[in-house]
């Protein structure tokens, strides 16, 4: 029976010491310990979340970089293509311009040559006419110096006309 009868002294000490233990631990141990554990758990979950976010951001950045790279590459190609087209155009334009200029120069030269030629021809024919007249004068002076010879020529001319 002794075993199951609570002893007054022990009851007293137990109430006292357990209350003190409860108060001390509540104030100096459980509150700070549990708070720190909670804080650490929050921190861990926050860190994990942050890490995940960072990873996602990294992936996004990578994708963006890829995109930018791709864009840059296509842009470069476009620029190159454009440059090539421009070059071709410039070259062909230059060629046409040059050809035109050359043609113009040639035509001008031709024209000048023709004009010069004409002028020369005109001058020449004038000269020839003059000379011919002079020659003819001199010939006529000599040929038709006698009457006979004049008549004979007239006759010949008439003959020629009647033939026509």
């Amino acid at each position, binding site marked *: 029976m*002794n*075993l*199951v*009868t*609570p*002893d*007054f*002294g*022990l*009851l*007293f*000490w*137990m*109430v006292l*010491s*357990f209350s*003190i*233990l*409860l108060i*001390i*631990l*509540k104030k*100096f*141990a*459980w*509150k*700070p*310990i*549990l708070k*720190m*554990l909670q804080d*650490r758990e929050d*921190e861990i979950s926050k860190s994990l979340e942050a890490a995940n976010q960072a990873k996602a951001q990294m992936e996004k950045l990578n994708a963006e970089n890829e995109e930018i790279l791709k864009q840059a590459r296509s842009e470069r190609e476009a620029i190159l293509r454009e440059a090539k087209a421009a070059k071709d155009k410039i070259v062909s334009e230059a060629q046409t311009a040059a050809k035109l200029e050359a043609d113009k120069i040639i035509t001008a030269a031709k024209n000048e040559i023709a004009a010069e030629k004409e002028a020369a021809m005109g001058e020449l024919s004038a000269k020839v006419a003059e000379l011919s007249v002079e020659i003819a004068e001199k010939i006529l002076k000599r040929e038709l110096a006698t009457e006979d010879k004049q008549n004979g020529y007239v006759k010949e001319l008439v003959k020629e006309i009647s033939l026509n």
Partner: protein
Amino acid sequence: MNLLKKLTLFALIFITANFAFAQNETNQGAKEEAFEPGELIMEHIGDAYEWHVATFGDFHLSLPLPCIVYSEKTGLHVFSSSNLHHGEQEFEGFRISESENYKGKLVEIIDGEEVRPWDFSITKNVFALLFSVSLISFIFIKMKKYYENNKGKAPHGFFNALELVVLFVRDDIAYASLGKKHGDKFMPFLMTVFFFIFINNLLGLIPILPGGANVTGNIAVTCVLALFVFVITTINGKKEYWLDIFWPKGTPWWLKMPPILPAVEIMGMFTKPIVLMVRLFANITAGHIIALGFFSLIFLFGAKSAGAGYGVSTVSILFTVFMSALELLVAFIQAYVFTLLSSIYFSMAVAEEHEEKPAVN
């Protein structure tokens, strides 16, 4: 692995030490009187005014503890229990009773009659209690300091292991049955109760000073723990809790009219903590009794013949090792069960809407 080896060694040393002490006791006993296993066991699991460690022949190695008694007639007396000479002598009119009523208790002799004074003595159990309370405070205040000094770092070593238990109590006991809001409110009590029971159970398994006292196997200790649970449950009882006791839903009106059902329900209020008290007390005491019983077997057989004694000792020690291992488990399970049931009772008290909770007893 290393820790396990150390623990095993530790247990073996203590068990053999205990064995040696016990043998000394019986050798002496054999000369004078027959070996009484019942008395040996009762002495070990009971309380005492001194802390008996070992007996060598006629020499008793024990730690004397202070006796504090208040007599209604002669006032306050404070003296060392060594003055009583292990119960053989009287001091200032006090002696340890051998009568049926007060066996083993300090009594005052007034006119030849034994009168029990108000006894506030620091007995073996009180001393062990004070020791464990200091130990628990020390451990957890140290743990707090450890956390403060290692903020933002991963814990390791002893406090990491302890943290596991703290988290177990928090997540699997308090939050599991009370939810976060109420769990936080009752957390300090649940934590304290859990570690008080657990550490005292473990100390009870160590056979020599400062362990070996049967603190959690003492009805007064478990009674106070249960009292705390009862008081906290009753104070925190919400409307639903009392309604459940006096006018439960889903019960025919003629049944819940006084006196039948309310009487049963009111009894239930008290049986819950009483069950807690008895379960812890009985489990821990039973564990001590079984371990001591196996030892007693050695000497009972040894008294018949030395050979039988040695033969039985092998089996007994094997069984005791097994029992010690089992007791380690029980030490944890009982702390767990007490705390879990306390938190379930609290959750019944603070439940805000009526829910069908499984009856746990």
